[in-house]
């Protein structure tokens, strides 16, 4: 073998050994890297994106829907506890029946609202209030945020909720009749970081999150334009000439799924709970709707009846125009009301169910009552 070949072999040897060593070291590093990269996933929740968000005041300039949207329940579904809307009803807690029974009072200083509870030994316990959930159309519930030892945001949901239908305070749905032991437990239930994220992510448009810590300064409270239409800074920058196809509904199932993200879908319930007339699922409209004959045999979706850009009070979702699209009295080919009614369809086919504490929700499982009028 000549000298040239030997040199080639030598170089090859050096290269291979170097390669082997470098790969070994890299693989060794891989061994110690967290294999389940829970903080580095292919795609992050849209609400946690840090960039791409437009100032929604710019929507009004081009979209008339944006004018009335701030009055919707969606837009006001989360407010600071010291906001006027929140304080306006919270101040009455002390005088309410349950407030007097459980010896609760509310106070306010320049920066915070506090809830106090007088204890049996004449001392008092206190917690600050941070956020008010709910627009007030049905109810308002208050929470305070906590930090666990991992730095994640936990939640304390208060026992007392204000209900619109009674204009009074009562126990919050899901809270035990008797308060628990412990400083926080006497005020309500504690939710872990995952549940806290779930609560805020459904009541906000943007929710920056870092390793379970919710960034409230960066949060955009309330469900507003970009919650459904996606981050729109590029759209605004281009004077509306660009749209992001990722945020267009592909079909009606996709549309209902978007609503079900917060209003819940059928898979989230135990199969035994998915039955007509069950008040426990009446709050979760996509579940009932997706089981309805009307839904299964037509192309209807949530927006067939609801215009999400307008307040419920300004919508025509309770009228019969939606029903008569398929059940037109003038069209003999279509199915008509067996009771001979021409209006007030909802009263019989979608009655409001009491879901507890007097809180009523329209049952979206559209169906025909039997002869005795039972659904």
């Amino acid at each position, binding site marked *: *073998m000549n000298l040239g*070949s030997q040199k080639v*072999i030598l170089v090859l*040897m050096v290269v*291979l*050994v170097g*390669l*082997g*060593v470098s*790969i*070994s070291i*890299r*693989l*060794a590093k*891989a*061994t110690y890297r*967290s*294999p*389940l*990269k*829970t*903080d580095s*996933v*292919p*795609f*992050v*929740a*849209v*609400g946690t*994106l840090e960039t791409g968000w437009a100032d929604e005041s710019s929507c009004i300039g081009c979209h008339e829907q944006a004018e009335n949207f701030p009055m919707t329940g969606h837009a006001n579904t989360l407010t600071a506890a010291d906001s006027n809307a929140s304080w306006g009803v919270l101040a009455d807690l002390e005088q309410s029946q349950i407030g007097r029974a459980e010896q609760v009072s509310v106070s306010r200083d320049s920066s*915070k609202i*506090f809830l106090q509870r007088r204890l049996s030994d004449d*001392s*008092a*316990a*206190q*917690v*600050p209030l941070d956020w008010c959930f709910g627009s007030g159309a049905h109810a308002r519930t208050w929470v305070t945020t*906590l*930090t666990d*030892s*991992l*730095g994640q945001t936990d939640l304390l949901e208060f026992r007392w909720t204000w209900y619109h239908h009674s204009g009074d305070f009562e126990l919050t749905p899901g809270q035990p009749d008797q308060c628990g032991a*412990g*400083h*926080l437990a006497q005020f309500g239930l504690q939710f*872990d*970081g*995952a549940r806290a994220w*779930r609560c805020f*992510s459904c009541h906000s448009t943007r929710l920056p999150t870092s*390793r*379970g*810590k919710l960034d409230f300064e960066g949060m955009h409270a309330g469900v507003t334009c970009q919650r459904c239409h996606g981050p729109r800074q590029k759209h605004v920058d281009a004077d509306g000439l660009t749209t*992001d196809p990722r*945020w267009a509904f592909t079909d009606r199932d996709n549309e209902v799924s*978007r609503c079900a*993200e917060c209003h*819940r879908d059928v*898979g989230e319930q135990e199969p035994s709970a998915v039955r007509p007339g069950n008040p426990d699922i009446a709050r979760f409209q996509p579940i009932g709707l997706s089981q309805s004959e009307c839904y299964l045999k037509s192309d209807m979706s949530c927006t067939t009846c609801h215009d999400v850009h307008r307040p419920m009070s300004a919508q025509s979702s309770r009228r019969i125009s939606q029903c008569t699209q398929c059940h037109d009295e003038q069209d003999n080919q279509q199915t008509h009301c067996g009771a001979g009614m021409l209006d007030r369809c909802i009263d019989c086919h979608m009655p409001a169910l009491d879901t507890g504490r007097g809180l009523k929700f329209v049952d979206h499982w559209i169906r025909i009552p039997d002869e005795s009028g039972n659904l």
Partner: protein
Amino acid sequence: MMSRRPPRTAFAGWWLIAFGLCCAKCLVTLQSDVFLLEPASIMASSSLSLVVWELPVLRVGILQDGLLVSKWLAAAIAAALIVWLLNRLARRRSIGFSVVVIALLASAWAPEHLLTWFWLIIIGPLLQVDSDCRWTWRHLVLGLIGLVGSAVTTVDFSMVLILVLVSVSDKILRERRRTGKLNRPALTLVVIALTASVVASFSLDGFANTLLRPLTAMQMAVLETPFAGLEPVTSSWLESLLLAATISLVIGDLQNSLSADPSGRPNRIGLLIVLGVGVFCRYYIPIVMPVLLFYSAFGHMKLLQAQKPPASLQLPTQWVLRFVVVLSVIGITAIHTIGLRPVLSANPFRQRLVNLKALTGEVKVLLMSPGMTSHWKGPEAPLRTQLLLDDRWDRFRPGQAETVQQVFADFARGRREIYLLENGESAGARRWIDSQKPDLLVLSSNDWTAIRQLSLNPNWNVIAIDGRRTVFATADRPDLNMRAGDASRLWFFLEWPNPRSQVSLEGFLEPGLDSDSVKVAGVLNAMRLPYAALRVLPDVDSFEADLQRAWSYTELVVRCARQNGRTSLLDLIRARKLIDQLRAQRRPSGIVPEKLERLELALKKAVDLKFQPRVQTPGSDSSGAKGRRYVLEGRFKEAEDIGVDASVNSDARMVSILLTGLKGSADNWQDRLRGVADSPDCPVNVRHEILFYLGCLALENREVEQAVSCFQQALATPDGFSNLCQLYLSQLTR
């Protein structure tokens, strides 16, 4: 060529040596059972159905358990195969060569590779490059047997196929050059092998993925795809380094062979392919080793043979190379035999994985942290384990790994239900996890966030913890629920050691080595059991141990704030001092400072919570209130200075004693603390607080009677810490 075979008695001796070395590699687990065939894996959700190659041989009823045999029997089989291989190489045999072969293979053997070894040995003669070795139809049959056998019984048949194709093609070319004719048997074998591979790839699910395993492995290693961690990593970087050195020696030896007659030169393409696979993917090391030995036996590793060395190699170089080879072999053997860390800690035989063999019935296991498949094929695994996902990279089609990763991340963070991703798609773990219906979820014991989320999930219970994995069991299976109940009793006993509790660590918790215990402590902290974490923490001076200790104290501060609405000065001072110390140590890791920041944030938030009505805040002008405020603000020096003043009240004295005592600058500080509590001028609320702290310290030190006494005395005058006193008392005396 003449063959000089050794007597049978010599082979018996070699077998005994090989058997001993094979057993040594798995001494601790020798009594366990292992699979010789890769058991079938399911991965069959509708949306994420992964194409899985199921070994055809597993369709035979009797083999469906994957040929479960005792490990010592597998070791015996491995030793027999090693000696058989030695026999194949016998004509070039020397004592040194035989020792090297046995040591290398005994250090590399693994039950799942034995069948691949078998087929490699079967096709060994095909690699022969001697010009006088004529290829006949017998070789064709041998090649076909090797190919079909390996395809039916192993997932690594592609290595056999590569070797057959390369060596046979090489043979065809050589004969063509020499005689001008094509060797028909060889050509037939190539055509059959290629045709069968192509047809099977298109017609059999998963065949192509499995065929491409070596290439996928190399691609993943080079491109560092997101699931590179899926590679089965069972050895240390040092082992890889030694392998690299060994391989480089083989290449080095190659240069000598190049001076030989061109007709006897090795098939360099085949050798380079095999070397590449071995270098890029450690999984294939045990398979590459026998192949390299074949190459050496057929004329290319003259250094290891008792023959005259080539003239081109100088004598000192020969000795250096020999020395390196011997060191490499010894190193690999030692590390394979007992592992690197045990060697360093001089505690080689301590069990490190919790034994789950007591789990009966079929158990569907979902590994949520890759790199753990081997743990579920060993002696600690339940007998009937069904892995829903394993480490094998060929299980994933493009894009599926990312999807699974997204699901795992969602599940770990408690994001069960659908939510929108930045790409407009929906995420949420529920649908995927529900479709899999796992019985056990296995998380890395380092994944604290996920462990915390799952430990608070009523659908899952922690049933086992060791330094590497934390195992959760579904609440849907009654038998697992019973086990979860026993496990809960153990966790609570570790937190609140009630003397009446009957608990056992066996099968639930394996502290392992010190480094493992630190990780177990992390898991217990993540489960919000800080006293349990402190109990399992080893008494070692290490950054990681102190980090866990600081976390435990922080958890106690948070617990006290939430239960009592007060700040536990005892735990706050300890946590802050430890965090300050850890910060000063300047750990060169990005993760640890962030963890410290998280602890600091948690402490700050716990202290900031305005849980007491303003009317009850002590006067800000008293020395006790000042000292307390300084402690809460982290101004320890100023707080200590107040204590120097002899005229201070009990509150300030308590703060001062806590500060000096916890700093280690005062003896009998706990007695002095009790002295403050017992002094007649001590206010009731300060006495209550001191007794609470003394009770907590006794609880931490497992002095149950002392703790109960302190908590009972504290409750005699109820005040701000009563809630936790009652909770602890109820746990210790029930």
